C-alpha cells in the first residue's frame, strides 16, 4: 500500500472541489474525500498491526524514498511508525467531523472546504515525512489556510486573531527553519549533508551543534503546540475561528508541534534534550498551571476551551520533557486524546453557538431541556477534559503522570504534583461552566425554541465520541501501538 495516498486523496479532493458547481456538490465531495481518507487511515492501522504481529520489526513501515532536489540531497522520504499512525487516525477522524460540522457554511462554501482540505493535506504530509525538508514543507503548508479560514469565516476580533496566529506560527516555523539548517550543515552522512531523519538518528550531530539547534527546534515546534510563553496565539485564534477551523486548530494543528518536538527535537538531538530537560519541564508546569487558572477567569465558552487547551497541551510538553518511555507514550496519548476531546468540545460549542447566538456562559442556562443531545455531548467532552475515568483524558493523563513520577529529581516531582493539582482546577471550571449552561432554569426566552442536532452534527459527534470511549475504556490497543515508537526514542536518549 502506498503511503503517498494519504497526501494524494486530500489533494485530489481539493482539485475536485475547485471544479464543483454547486455548494451541495462541494460539501459532498469534501465529505466523500474525507471519509475515503478515514477509510485509508483505518485500513492502514489494521494493516500495520497485522504486519507488526507477523513479526515485522523495521522501525518505519511503508517507506518510500524519491529524490527531490538531488544536489541538495533532499528526498521525498516518507514512512510511518505507531506514533505517526495514531496521529494520522486522529487527523482523519477530526477532518471528517470538521467537514460534517461545517455543513451549514453558506458564505463562499467552495473556498471554505478547499482551505479545510488543504490544511489537512499539510497535516497528513507532516506526520508521514521522514525527511526534514519534506516535513517543513508540509508544516508551513498548514499555516496560511488557517489565516484565511479565521479571517473570512471567523467571528469576533477575527482580523486581529488571524494575523496574530499567522505571524506567530510563521515565527515558529522560522525558528524551526533555523534549527533545521544548523542541523543540516553539521550533519555528515557518508560525507554529505542530509535532512534524512533515519540517517540523522543513526549519525547524531555533535554535542555543540545539538546544544545550539535544540532550542530553536523545540521552541519553534513549541509555538505550534502553544507552549508557554508562545501560547498567546491559541486563545485568540481558537475563539475567533469558525467551528471546523477551531477543531482543526486544536485537534490537529497543535499536534503538529507536539509531534515535531518529539520526532525532530528530542529524537534527533537526544543529548541536548536531556541537557535542557529541566527547562522544558518548567515551561510545561507553568503552562499547565497558568492555563488552568486563566481558564477560570473566562466567560466565553470558546475561550474556556482554548485556554484549557493551553493547559492540556502542557501535559504533552511535560510528558516529552520527562524523557521516560511511559511519559513519552503518555504524551502521544494525550495528543490523541486532547485532539479528539477538544474537537468534540469545539464542535459542541459551535453547534450551541449557532443556535443560541451567544457563547457567554452567563447568558445561557438549562439547555439540557431544549437540546438534550448537544448538551450531553457538551458534558461528555467536559468530563473527558477533566479526566474522568472511562474517557480518554484519564488514560492519557494517568500515563503521563506515571511516566513523570519515574523521574527522581525534585523539580520533576514538583512539576508532576503541580500538574496533578491542576486537574482540580480543571474540574472547577468545567463543572461550573456546564452547570451554568446545561443545568438549571432556562434563562433566555429565545432559547426555548431552538432545535437539537441535525444528522450531520450527530454523526460528527458520535464519531469523535466513539474514539474517545475506545481509548478511555480500552487504552491498551493505543499504548501497544505507541510503545515501540517511544521505545525507539528512548533508545536514542539512553544511548549516549
Amino acid at each position: 500500500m502506498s503511503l503517498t495516498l494519504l497526501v494524494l486523496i486530500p489533494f485530489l479532493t481539493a482539485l475536485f472541489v475547485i471544479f464543483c458547481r454547486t455548494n451541495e456538490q462541494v460539501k459532498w465531495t469534501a465529505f466523500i474525500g474525507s471519509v475515503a481518507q478515514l477509510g485509508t487511515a483505518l485500513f492502514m492501522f489494521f494493516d500495520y498491526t497485522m504486519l507488526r504481529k507477523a513479526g515485522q520489526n523495521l522501525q518505519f513501515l511503508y517507506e518510500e524514498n524519491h529524490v527531490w532536489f538531488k544536489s541538495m540531497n533532499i528526498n521525498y522520504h516518507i514512512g510511518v511508525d505507531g506514533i505517526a499512525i495514531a496521529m494520522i487516525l486522529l487527523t482523519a477522524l477530526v477532518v471528517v467531523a470538521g467537514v460534517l460540522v461545517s455543513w451549514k457554511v453558506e458564505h463562499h462554501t467552495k473556498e471554505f472546504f478547499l482551505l479545510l482540505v488543504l490544511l489537512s493535506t499539510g497535516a497528513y504530509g507532516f506526520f508521514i515525512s521522514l525527511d526534514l525538508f519534506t516535513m517543513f514543507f508540509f508544516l508551513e503548508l498548514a499555516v496560511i489556510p488557517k489565516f484565511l479560514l479565521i479571517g473570512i469565516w471567523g467571528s469576533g476580533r477575527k482580523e486581529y486573531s488571524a494575523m496574530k496566529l499567522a505571524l506567530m506560527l510563521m515565527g515558529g516555523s522560522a525558528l524551526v527553519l533555523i534549527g533545521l539548517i544548523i542541523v543540516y550543515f553539521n550533519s555528515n552522512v557518508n560525507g554529505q549533508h542530509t535532512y534524512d531523519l533515519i540517517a540523522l538518528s543513526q549519525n547524531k550531530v555533535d554535542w555543540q551543534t545539538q546544544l545550539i539547534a535544540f532550542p530553536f527546534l523545540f521552541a519553534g515546534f513549541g509555538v505550534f503546540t502553544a507552549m508557554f510563553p508562545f501560547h498567546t496565539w491559541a486563545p485568540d485564534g481558537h475563539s475567533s475561528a469558525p467551528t471546523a477551523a477551531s477543531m482543526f486548530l486544536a485537534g490537529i494543528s497543535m499536534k503538529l508541534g507536539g509531534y515535531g518536538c518529539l520526532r525532530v527535537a528530542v529524537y534527533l538531538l537526544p543529548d541536548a534534550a536531556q541537557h535542557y530537560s529541566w527547562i522544558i519541564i518548567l515551561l510545561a508546569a507553568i503552562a499547565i498551571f497558568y492555563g488552568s487558572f486563566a481558564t477560570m477567569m473566562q466567560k466565553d465558552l470558546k475561550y474556556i476551551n482554548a485556554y484549557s487547551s493551553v493547559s492540556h497541551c502542557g501535559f504533552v510538553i511535560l510528558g516529552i520533557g520527562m524523557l521516560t518511555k511511559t511519559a513519552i507514550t503518555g504524551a502521544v496519548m494525550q495528543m490523541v486524546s486532547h485532539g479528539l476531546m477538544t474537537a468534540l468540545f469545539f464542535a459542541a460549542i459551535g453547534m450551541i453557538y449557532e443556535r443560541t447566538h451567544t457563547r457567554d456562559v452567563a447568558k445561557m442556562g438549562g439547555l439540557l431541556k431544549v437540546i438534550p443531545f448537544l448538551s450531553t455531548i457538551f458534558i461528555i467532552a467536559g468530563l473527558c477534559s477533566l479526566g474522568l475515568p472511562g474517557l480518554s483524558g484519564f488514560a492519557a493523563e494517568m500515563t503521563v503522570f506515571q511516566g513523570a513520577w519515574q523521574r527522581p529529581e525534585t523539580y520533576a516531582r514538583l512539576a508532576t504534583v503541580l500538574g496533578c493539582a491542576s486537574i482540580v482546577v480543571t474540574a472547577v471550571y468545567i463543572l461550573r461552566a456546564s452547570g451554568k449552561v446545561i443545568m438549571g432554569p432556562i434563562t433566555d426566552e429565545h432559547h426555548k425554541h431552538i432545535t437539537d442536532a441535525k444528522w450531520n452534527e450527530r454523526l460528527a459527534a458520535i464519531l469523535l465520541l466513539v474514539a474517545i470511549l475506545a481509548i478511555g475504556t480500552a487504552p491498551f490497543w493505543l499504548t501497544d501501538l505507541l510503545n515501540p515508537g517511544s521505545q525507539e526514542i528512548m533508545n536514542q536518549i539512553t544511548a549516549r
Partner: protein
Amino acid sequence: MDKMFFQMMKPELILTGLIFIFLIAKIANRAEDNKKFLLFANILLILNCVAGFVWTPDWSKGLMQGVLFDNMYHTTPTLILEKNILNFALVLISFLSYDWLNRGKNTSEFYMLLLSSQLGMFFLLSSGNFLMFFLSMELATIPLAALSNFDLDRPKSPEAAFKSIMSSAFASAIMLFGITLIYGTTGAIAFSDVINNLMPGSPLQIMGFVFIFVGLAFKLSLVPFHLWTADVYEGSPVPVTAALAVLSKGTFIFVFASTLFTVFPVFFGGWERMLMISIMITISFGNFMAVRQNNLKRLLAFSSIAQMGYLLMGMMGGPDYASGPTAIVYFMVIYVFSSLAMFAVVALVFDRTGKDDISDYKGFYQNNKLLSWVVAIALFSLAGIPPTAGFFGKYFLLTAGAARGDYYLLAVACLNMIVSLYYYLRVVKAIFIDKSETPIEKIKVGTLNATTMAICCAGILIIGFSGDVFEYISGFFMN
C-alpha cells in the same frame, strides 16, 4: 566571422536587429495602428525568446567560455541561460503592457527603449572588460529612465524619471571612480588582467573595489543606497516598474554575483563581511519600510529591496559552494514569475480604475475572484509560503546563506520573513477579508494579460515541486 561568432553573439545581434525593425516600423506605421503593431511586436519578442534556446554554441568540445574582440566580450552557458531568462521576462512584460500601450501613443518608441536597455544588459552580462562594463551599464539604465517618463500626462512620471536618471548617474560616477582606482593600481581594464594584478591588502585597490560595490549596490537598491527606488516604482507606469523590478534587478544581481566572484575573489574575506552586513540591513530595512506603506506599488518597491537582500544571501556560501549561485538563478526565475503575476494585476487594475492603494483593494474578492487568487498566489510566493515556488527559492537561499556558518545572518533573514509575511498578508486581508461599500467593479481581462497571469501562476505552482528545474540550473554551476 565564423559560425561560432554568430552563435555566441546571437542574443545581442537579434536584439539589435529588432531595434532596427521597430525603428523602421515606426516610419512605416504612419496610421499609428496600435493593434497591428503590438501583435507584430509581441510575435517578434516571442520569436526572440525561442531563438535563445536554439542554435546555441557547441560547448561539447570542452570549451566552456567563448571570448570575442580581444576579451571585450565573453559568453558562457550560464550567461546564455541568464539571457534566456531575461528574454522570457521581456515577453511577459510586453504581454502585460498590452492594454496600456494599446491606448497610448509612441508604442514603437517604448519597444525601442526597452530593447535598447535589454541590449545594454546583455552586453553588461557578457562584458569582460571594465570599459565595456561601464558603457553597457549606461546603455542599460538610461533608456529605463526615459521609459519611466512615458506617462507624459502624469506629473509623477517625470519626477520618477528625474530621480532615476540622477541616481543612476551618481552611481555610475562612483563606479567610474572605483574603476579608475583599479586601473591605476593594476594598469589593466580587462577582467583577466585585473585578476592577476590584484593584491590583497592594497588599500587603493580595496577602495576601488568598495566604490564599484557601491555603484552596483545603487543599481540593486541595497540599503542605504535605496532611496530612489520607491519613488521611481510609484511614479513610473506599471509595466516600466515591472521591467525595472525584474529585468534591471535581475541583470544586476547576475552581474553582481559574477563580478564579485570572478574579478574580486581575492578580496572574498573582506567583502564577505561587507556583504553580510549590507544584506542584514537591506532585508530588515526594506521589510520595515514596506510595513508602513499604503500604496501597493511602494509596498512592492520596498519588498523588492528586501528580496534583493535575500537573493544576495546566495553569495554568502563563497566561491566554492555551487548551490549558492544556483539558488540565485533559481530564485530569480521564481521572482520573475511571482512579481510579474503581481504586476500584471496591479497594471490591469491601475489601468482600468486608476487605483493603487491597498485600501482600494478592499473587497476586491467580491467581484474579481480569479484575479484575487492570482494576487494571493503571487504574494504567497513572494513571502515564501508553500506550495508556491517562492518557498523553495527562499529555502535554498537561506541554506546558502548559512553554508559558511553565518547563523546570525540566517536568524535575521528568517525572522524577517515574519515581518514580510505581515505586509503581504495585509494585502491578502484587504482583498479577501475586508468589506467595502464600493469595491472595484468586475474587471475584464484581455487575452494577453490572462496569458501572462496563467503562465506566471503555472510557473509559481510547478517550478517548486519539480526538482528538475533546480537540477537543470545546478548543472550549469556544478562543473
